[in-house]
């Protein structure tokens, strides 16, 4: 069994997919930066950014549904901002009595909450589109293009490559564990419900043992990889080809994208900043 689903890249014949990975990377980061710099309350700018994002999603063939579904996984963190609804001073919208306390939901609080939620939601969509429309090797190229040290990029490449190998091994360990763990009926608790057996500490130790086994295999494998690298002439220095030139079409897209984002930021700052 292979852990293919770990790889978010979906090859599709879309102009977004075909666009140079370096340009996409820069535009994605620029988008997130623009979102971050957009002042609170600049709703028209958020709306424009959202429509921009949705257009890209549709153009890429990934589909708005797919992107939004993945984006919802990041949602739980928004709960962390929940308190802001009640702690920000301002005009009260709602009063929730809780015993001796009264939680006051303020308009300002709701505004703050909404801003954080929208910023977060927009940013994660950009990251999803980037990862889903760009093959990982192209992302590595993009990292080199923005001057991330070659050694680090090579390490990212190695990690990604062996992610799938080790995830397969981890899955095998988990299936072996599942095959050997029956679920135990515990009548003293809830009537007849099945629960995993053993104490918490024991289960943690088993999980830890599996982790240890995984690490051991990883270290052993790294030894063998090192031998294979040496056999092909590795001398400690990371070598790679020169970066291919950026096509004029990609360049145009880059400049256009940055200009649009720049204008959005500017208008947001001038009017609401």
């Amino acid at each position, binding site marked *: 069994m292979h852990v293919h689903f770990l*790889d*978010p890249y979906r090859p599709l014949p879309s102009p977004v997919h075909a666009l140079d990975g370096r340009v996409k990377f820069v535009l994605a*980061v620029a988008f*997130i930066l623009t979102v*971050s*710099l957009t002042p609170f309350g600049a709703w028209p700018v958020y709306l424009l950014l959202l429509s921009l994002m949705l257009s890209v999603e549709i153009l890429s063939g990934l589909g708005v549904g797919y992107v939004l579904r993945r984006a919802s996984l*990041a949602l*739980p*963190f928004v709960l*962390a901002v929940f308190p802001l609804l009640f*702690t*920000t*001073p301002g005009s009260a919208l709602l009063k929730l009595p809780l015993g001796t306390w009264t939680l006051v939901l303020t308009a300002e609080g709701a505004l*703050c909450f909404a*801003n*954080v939620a929208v*910023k*977060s*939601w*927009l*940013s*994660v969509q950009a*990251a999803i589109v*980037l990862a889903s429309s760009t093959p*990982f090797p192209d*992302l590595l190229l993009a990292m080199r293009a923005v001057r991330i*040290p070659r*050694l*680090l990029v090579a*390490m*990212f490449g190695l*990690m990604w490559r*062996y992610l799938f*190998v*080790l995830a397969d*091994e*981890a899955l095998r360990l*988990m299936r072996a564990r599942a095959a050997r763990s029956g679920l135990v009926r515990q009548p003293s608790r809830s009537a007849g419900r099945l629960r*995993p057996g053993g104490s*918490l500490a024991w289960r*943690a*130790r*088993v*999980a*830890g043992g*599996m*982790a*240890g*086994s*995984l*690490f*051991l295999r*990883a*270290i052993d*494998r*790294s030894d063998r990889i090192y031998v294979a*690298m040496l056999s092909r002439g*590795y*001398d400690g220095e990371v070598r790679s080809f020169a970066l291919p030139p950026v096509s004029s079409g990609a360049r145009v897209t880059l400049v256009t994208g940055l200009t649009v984002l720049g204008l959005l930021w500017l208008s947001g700052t001038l009017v609401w*900043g």
Partner: protein
Amino acid sequence: MFNRPAPMHLPDGFLSTIVSIVFWAISALTLAYALRRTGKDLGERQLPLMGVLAAAIFAGQMLNFSVTGGTSGHLLGAAIATILVGPWPAVIVMTTVVSIQALIFQDGGLLALGANLFNMAVVGVAVSYFVYTSLRRLVPQRPWSTLVGGFVAAWSSIFIASLSAALQLAISGTSPANIAVPAMAGIHALIGVGEGMITVGALTFLVATRRDLLAREQAGSRGGVGVWVFGLGIALALAVLSPLASANPDGLEWVAEQKGFLEAARSPLYNLIPDYVLPGVSNEALATILAGVAGTLIVFAVTLGVAYLRRSRKNTV
């Protein structure tokens, strides 16, 4: 789909732009130094070892175990990485893990990555190193010192890193410190136990089967006084600051002073240092937090400077 709760990986939109950029700078500098340092210690072996270890930690995060009916605990890995390969390589390993998590799986934002790297790859590693080496030195060479050291190091790394994340949220104005700190600290005090248990399990396995491996990797990597001092410093700073920040005698007073946050949040770039941080102004708690952070950064800078000087002196002697 593997649904991995990542309560410490801050998404984009939660930190102000300034905070994000500042922590990006700090993490980038630390990483640059770690790369140089690791090159000297491990040589050409480093690439496959650290790359595959990063993959193992990520894969290890899939090995969950059920804590109660619905939730599950899983591994972050800073402690085990530090114990296995030493602090500087661990910084690189954790950087790789956290970066790939952000880029490919959206565990944590891209702009916020700098801050997340600081919390998990720098603070997490430094605190692990400090706790582990201290405990092992205090209890010399007992068979269980590795395991106890591992547990406490793992728990502390998660706990202290979460305080750092909470304070980042507080400074950004996203979540007031008196809520963010207890919430993060509380959740991660529990998660830290899971991390500790898995770390101990992994170490038990490795000690039993390949003690030589453990010794080999640990012998090959050095951390040095600098890391130890920083680990101590950051742990103290955060552990002291956080209750300070969150303990406000009067919650309403805090909320009133919060009004400053709204102003600052609206124009994040132009109010580089919000008024209320300047000495003598209303929000003392925030002033304390920021002073603490500044102090930590100074400790860090001094530590790096000292470590760097010691290294260059060693080379010239």
